């Protein structure tokens, strides 16, 4: 009888620990999910206010302006643009006309305040999110033309 109680206590204890751990993992997961929005979606006010998200597309030609370590540029999916500002050093492969993904929050004036700018390690490579955004915009434009 006693051995059985012990075993039961152990199993319950183990389950409790696993339960707590899983709860912890899930809540951290919920809080730190970062969604991606294309410039068109941002323009349509689909992006959340006050919560971090990612925006991506192409860096618009001629839009990069530097002031010391402050940089501002525009990200486009060829249909809409989002103005991005960032303080810090950009990755080596950040270039006008190339794909980019930025993570941050929308400011009050509609400027995207980036905390992180990602451009990957290969010059021919397009971030999948950025490619997706441009593709969606093209599709949307095509269907408009058909109508």
């Amino acid at each position, binding site marked *: 009888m006693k051995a059985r109680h012990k075993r039961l206590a152990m199993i319950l204890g183990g389950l409790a620990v696993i339960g707590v751990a899983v709860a912890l993992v899930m809540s951290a997961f919920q809080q730190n*999910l970062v969604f991606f929005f294309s410039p068109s979606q941002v323009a349509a006010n689909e992006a959340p206010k006050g919560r971090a998200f990612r925006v991506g597309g192409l860096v618009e030609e001629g839009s990069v302006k*530097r002031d010391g*370590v402050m940089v501002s540029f525009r990200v486009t999916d060829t249909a809409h643009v989002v103005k991005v500002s960032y303080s*810090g050093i950009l990755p080596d492969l950040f270039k006008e006309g190339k794909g980019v993904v930025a993570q941050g929050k929308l400011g009050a004036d509609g400027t995207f305040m980036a905390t992180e700018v990602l451009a*990957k390690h*290969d*010059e021919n490579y397009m971030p999948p999110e950025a490619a997706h955004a441009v593709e969606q915009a093209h599709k949307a434009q095509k269907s408009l033309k058909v109508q």
Partner: protein
Amino acid sequence: MIPEIGHFALILALLIALLQGVLPIVGAARGIGPWMDLARPAAKAQAMFVTLAFGCLMWSFYVSDFSVQNVASNSNSLLPWYYKLSATWGSHEGSILLWTLMLAWWTSLVAFFSRHLPREMVARVIGTLGLVSAGFILFTLTTSDPFDRLFPAAPEGRDLNPLLQDPGMIFHPPMLYMGYVGFAVPFAFAIAALMGGRLDAAWARWTRPWTTMAWVFLTLGIALGSWWAYYELGWGGWWFWDPVENASFMPWLTGTALVHSLAVTEKRGSFKTWTVLLAIITFSMSLLGTFLVRSGVLTSVHAFATDPERGVFILGFLIFVIGSSLLLFAWRAPKVGLGGKFANVSRESMLLMNNVLLVVAMGAVFLGTMYPLFLDAIAGTKISVGPPYFDAVFAPLMAPLVFLMGVGPLSRWKEAKIPDLATRLRWAAVVAVVTAVLVPVVLGRWSWIVSGGLLLAFWIVASAVVNVREHIRNVRGSLLTRLASQPRAFWGMNLAHLGVAIFIIGVTLVKGYETERDVRMAVGDVVSVGGFTFKFEGVQEVQGPNYVAARGTFDVSKNGRFIEKLYPEKRSYLSNRAMPMTEAAIDSSIIGDIYVSLGEPVGGDAWTVRAYYKPFVTWIWWGCVAMALGGLVALSDRRYRFARRREASAAKAAVTA
């Protein structure tokens, strides 16, 4: 001609691997001796042919044979010879061949060091490895042939990705793969145990050294990768929770759990089924890692190609291996038995908790890595899970694990008493708390994170000291003879745990006290970071063997006293002008790294500059080295050697009888 020989050798290796995978296993099931005895020679022959194939590929790279597609796309005649050689595994095809090579070598090592094992066991272990090997060679030949010819031959190669032109490329991939692939051995032992229905302390003792060895390689491989990223990517991070890193970290977590559960299975005969399951999970994680990195589902520097055909093959193989192993497990595990009983508080129960925490941690990494992929594949929604998630999850999961690291080694097997443990460890606790409170004050700034991290680190150290003292208290002689009286396995464990403490100190102090400044600097400008003053002296153009670089000069001084000059570079490789490379200049010492890298020119003679001070950052990697060394010391324990000799003579006696 040479590439064709390589290709042919690989085909032969496939045929041998199939023989090695089928006949010995069938032989073991039917009791056909000669078929079982085929396992060892087949394994050695297979290793020979795979090595020949790999050698041929390496040779093609060495002589820059641009009529081979793989060489033309991944090498260049201007590369120094050592990068030509390491470019062999710089591509998808080459690295899969490296995988196969490592597996063949591990298998032949098993063939050499298994004379003392029962015949059926050897047949089943080597047979299982043969099947895995056949799968990988088939994959190489059908979807990623590294020997494909190019007509007409290219006049010049497209060059190795500049990021990979680094000493890290020579050591990191082979080391990591040795670890990844090494977990195939405990996996094969587990499968063999399930097939034979026999799992006892001897089985655990055979499996343990292989597991530890694979774990040592994986630990070093991951640490090397982290160090490489730190100095090469040019922005001073040492771990990014990038899916590719997570892919190697998941087998490490379950592999660590496996090392511990094997200890229980060997010493106490408990956890049997769990150990087998863990061995299966760990190797599955290795395969999953290969799938993630090689299929192109993640796109980063490690994913050289995006080719669905390959992805589907590996995914199919992955599902087949994991599915059939789990099926076998479900069918045969009840035969293996549960093993010895233990109380709620005992070394067993603490190791069980260790295993639960490590597996939950693996699950958390799995969720964060795979969920975005699933969601994208199923719903097309693009999300990402960043470092904050992993940071938030890991600290609370690792803290109890580290606490147990102090208590576990001091508790008795079967049943331990909490009051007894509390008495023995009270001084360790006091020392840990006092140092954790005082050290941050001495270092200048007190914070919860630093104090908490140091508490964990000092707790490991102090409890290890208590453990050593208790072990040698009743031994006579000088201190040295008393210390030498302890088995190597004991020292190995303590060294590995000490490595964790060193690692934690590194992580904590970097997080707590690092200073990072991104600034715009014109010539003559001065910036102060972490007590150091950096003066920008300007940028010159310098010529490398296959690149040109803008090289900056920085004078570093502290309190007006000159320390040194640092020369960070911005390189532009001749073969690939569009892809500039940042080479940070780092002055590394045991108490901290001074780190400077160039951003970009911003008009006039001004540049954007990263100037960092990273206190104790090298302790992170030294901690990993200590963990790996601990594993090696434990491996050299005499009981493995003596046990082997004993079993060999027992086997011989049985034969003569």
